[in-house]
């Protein structure tokens, strides 16, 4: 029973990271129609930058915030490179993000080496229904829920958030009222960078990150985003948690090497089941 709770909580925690990464996919896709495959890379940036800043003796909290904001700026730059040229088709932008992600992996090896790095988290453990759970994992869940609330308030209540939604819903009308749709696209990449960076910063203390972490993180995030139809952030959160929990249970009771396969299978199943509704949404 204790094992089960441990798997469950750590599954929810990693699922939250997938959900943050996945919501980055959603935000960028809604505004630009681009599937941004630097999303996992941005998480790795977050984790690695945080580790360096903490080693440089920046206090907890500040180091993490600076790392998240840096990932946001990197996301913005990636967005500028991938979609900056007017009229770039989304498929070409997707390929550019794949290229940027590969290039970043080389950059990671150059600056941080090949070994997985795990910056210190908040440490300690907490009792949850009799199971000892690392407090960091609980922090991941709490921060993720706050991030999702802030994200949906931003889109539903703030004027800029509404501008982003407008640019996504009708780019032509958005342009006519004076919204710079391209800049809204860059902004969405910046937000995706913050979300990805946050995922990396939160998850790295318990799941060390390296140059090779971007793909599994991006796959998990993408599967979560597909669960949300690439449009809904709340369904992405649900998808991420389901994926994280199933992955941890499989790893705990079967074998850890099956985790990525679980993500891929889940993505495949959802795509087949949801194919009709997805293509209907695309047609809108």
């Amino acid at each position, binding site marked *: 029973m204790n094992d089960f709770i441990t798997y469950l909580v750590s599954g929810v925690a990693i699922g939250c990271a997938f959900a943050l990464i996945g919501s980055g996919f959603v935000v960028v896709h809604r505004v630009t129609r681009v599937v941004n495959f630097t999303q996992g890379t941005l998480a790795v940036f977050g984790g690695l930058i945080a580790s360096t800043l903490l080693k440089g003796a920046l206090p907890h909290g500040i180091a993490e915030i600076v790392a998240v904001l840096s990932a946001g700026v990197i996301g913005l730059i990636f967005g500028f490179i991938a979609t900056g040229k007017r009229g770039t088709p989304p498929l070409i932008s997707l390929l550019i993000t794949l290229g940027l992600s590969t290039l970043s992996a080389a950059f990671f090896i150059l600056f941080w080496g090949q070994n997985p790095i795990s910056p210190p988290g908040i440490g300690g453990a907490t009792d949850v229904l009799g199971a000892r759970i690392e407090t960091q994992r609980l922090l991941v869940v709490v921060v993720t829920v706050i991030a999702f609330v802030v994200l949906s308030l931003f889109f539903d209540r703030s*004027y800029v958030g*509404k*501008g982003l*939604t*407008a640019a996504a*819903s*009708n780019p*032509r*009308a*958005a*342009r*006519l*009222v*004076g*919204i710079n749709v391209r800049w809204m696209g860059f902004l969405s990449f910046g937000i995706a960078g913050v979300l990805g960076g946050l995922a990396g910063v939160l998850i790295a203390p318990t799941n060390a990150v390296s140059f090779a972490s971007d793909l599994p993180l991006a796959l998990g995030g993408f599967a979560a985003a597909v669960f949300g139809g690439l449009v809904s952030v709340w369904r992405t959160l649900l998808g991420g948690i389901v994926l994280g929990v199933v992955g941890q249970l499989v790893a705990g009771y079967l074998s850890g090497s099956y985790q990525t396969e679980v993500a891929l299978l889940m993505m495949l199943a959802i795509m087949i089941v949801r194919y009709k509704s997805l293509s209907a949404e695309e047609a809108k």
Partner: protein
Amino acid sequence: MLTLNDVVIRYGSAVAVDGVSLSVERGEMVALVGPNGAGKSSLVNAISGVVPVASGSIRLDARSAQVPEGRQMFADMSVEDNLRLGAWKSKDRDPAPIYEMLPDLQRLRRQKAGTLSGGQQQMVAVGRALMAKPELLLIDELSLGLAPLVVAGLADHLQKLNREHGTTILLIEQEIALAFRLCERAYVLEAGRIVASGESAELALDPALRDAYLGGEVGGTPRREDAS
């Protein structure tokens, strides 16, 4: 207020607008009429600055806003959000003056724009454009797909806007009888060129135009007015 000089608009190798010159003075209500594909929308989008001009010049010394063809709602957003987004470039985002002018919108303000009827959406589109406090209002197809009674209501609002608020209006319209009735002056665009221009009343009498576009419809218009 608005002067177009020998404007050419191309999409790749296709010429949509081929050397159009026209002008609109402050306070006027001018129609730009012509058949489908004549280049009317291209021209108005060039004036709005969303379609590039290949050659020639557009001089606009006023704030403008466009009511786009097909109304182009932000469908999943409320009427009020649609209106407020119309003021993207200004600081004043209070929709109250629009509600005063178009009271129906106040009643609908919480509804999602995508769920409204065509006529209601057209009113939202007009309201959204007015949120930018335009001195020149560009309307791309007022009547398209709307019932005559709905169009008559919208036309009344536009005339009021023009007379009472002094808003200059350039109306693009396929239904030529309606355009001539609303606007004192008109340009006729055909295959990217202006083929006729002048007072609407005189243009309506031009036998060539009557045969080509109006199909005797002009004679019917006053009767419709009598009935209403």
